[in-house]
């Protein structure tokens, strides 16, 4: 699949934003008065909004995006839009009350946290629902999206909050999220199109005669389908990108958290861990798209 930068940024940024909103709504301890409350809420909401705005950049008609809120009965993309907007509105009130009164409403917090979790889940289901991409169609896909959202959100929260054990919990969440991703990668490696039972033979229905091979494409040039779904250039540097994802996304954050936790250095240094993890997740998300094999590639002689 074509790794669109807008969608990669959307899934990573809104994941971290909703992860942070989930933690704030659940009562992650943040001291320091109205200014701190404003700032940390702004980061959570800002990341989520930036992600959502970015996702509209890949639309052919962004001015019609509001129409995407209508089909929640059948469409995960529609549900995602509704969940995200509803969560942001509730969280906005939560943050406002927090700043003005210093009180953190348990009810609005719980609603924000639940909404944030639902938002990330529905984002992951946009991909996990697709039978055409067997590597995505897995229960592990929502697990990975939720795991990364929580872990990256935790690292930001740990930079501004004042929880005593936020580093050790951060390390655990980061490692657990990457363990889920490792399992996802292992499954993806054995869930290619052929493993899922789709071959050029089933695509053409000609397998009863013999082995099927594409002789000639419909047109000499590229088309929307080949650019969007038979995209292979992004896989060229898959190995090195996976290493980048693991080092920036896992090793560096764990090292920083360990240092901060052991030396008692200022907690805002954890922000470096968060930034590094988000950079690693951008590489991870690039691979999520570029390594995915779509069924239509069988009609174009590729996997």
């Amino acid at each position, binding site marked *: 699949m074509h790794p669109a930068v807008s969608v990669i940024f959307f899934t990573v940024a809104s994941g971290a934003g909703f992860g942070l909103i989930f933690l704030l709504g659940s009562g992650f301890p943040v001291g320091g008065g109205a200014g701190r409350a404003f700032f940390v809420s702004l980061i959570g909401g800002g990341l989520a909004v930036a992600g959502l705005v970015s996702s509209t950049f890949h639309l052919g008609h962004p001015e019609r995006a509001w*129409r995407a809120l209508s089909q929640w009965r059948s469409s995960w993309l529609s549900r995602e839009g509704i969940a995200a907007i509803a969560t942001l509105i509730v969280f906005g009130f939560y943050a406002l009350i927090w700043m003005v009164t210093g009180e953190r409403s348990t009810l609005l917090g719980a609603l924000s946290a639940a909404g944030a979790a639902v938002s990330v889940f529905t984002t992951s289901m946009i991909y996990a629902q697709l039978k055409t991409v067997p590597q995505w169609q897995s229960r592990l896909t929502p697990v990975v999206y939720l795991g990364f959202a929580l872990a990256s959100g935790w690292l930001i929260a740990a930079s501004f909050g004042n929880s005593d054990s936020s580093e050790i919990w951060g390390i655990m969440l980061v490692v657990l999220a990457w363990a889920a991703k490792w399992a996802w990668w292992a499954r993806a490696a054995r869930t290619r199109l052929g493993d899922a039972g789709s071959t050029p033979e089933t695509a053409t229905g000609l397998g009863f005669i013999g082995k099927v091979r594409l002789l000639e494409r419909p047109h000499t040039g590229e088309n*929307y389908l080949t650019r969007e779904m038979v995209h292979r250039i992004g896989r060229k540097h898959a190995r090195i990108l996976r290493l980048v994802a693991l080092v920036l996304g896992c090793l560096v954050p764990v090292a920083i958290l360990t240092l901060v936790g052991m030396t008692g250095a200022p907690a805002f240094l954890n922000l470096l861990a968060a930034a590094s993890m988000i950079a690693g997740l951008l590489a991870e998300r690039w691979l999520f798209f570029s390594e995915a094999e779509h069924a239509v590639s069988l009609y174009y002689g590729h996997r």
Partner: protein
Amino acid sequence: MTSLPAPPEKRLGLVIDLDTCVGCHACAVNCKEWNTGAGASPLSDVDAYGADASGAWLNRIHTFEVTPRDAPAQIVHFPKSCLHCDDAPCVTVCPTGASHKRGEDGIVLVTEDLCIGCGLCAWACPYGAREMDPVENVMKKCTLCVDRIYSDALPEEDRIPACVRTCPSSARHFGDFNDPESNVSRLVAERGGIDLMPEMGTRPVNKYLPPRPKTTERPSSAAARQAEMPKAEGGFLGWLDAALEKLG
């Protein structure tokens, strides 16, 4: 509404005969012509006369080589357009209600004014039946020529999809799959019509008729081939045949 309708009264669709298709691309060209000039927005191209021509097509003709285990390879031309699936995944994923399946005849359509061009329906389709229009930025797909088949303005014989009307080898057939006596239902029954990628669970309406079996009995040994040689009896040719045979 992007939920699928109750099973439609009529299930209109195409039968494509892979035995008679000659791969001339006339169906794709007539499709492009009709859908560029018809009611909806044009089916556009970018850099059509330049080095990197590209555009939206609703029908594309692939050519495959099929190699049996014990016979020479054969060529199969393979036109591919929307299959108007009973369980169309492109419909249910649509967030706006633009992509829909009609309750009356099962045709899968895109309402262009509602389409935001997110492309998710094209991702959900295993067949590559949907293409983003590079100028209009909305999703385009085969309409089964809904603007021809119900048209009062066209002569009776033209009230079929453009691809079917133009096919010079009659490899394309249009009809109602719910009617067991229709031309398409009979063809599918007689020739063993096949579904593409049944494992995707889309239950396509369009069916493909497989190529008829090739004649495969060929004499194998040299002696058998010799025995099959024609022999001239009597006259000058008979004398010549016998004389040359003696020479070896």
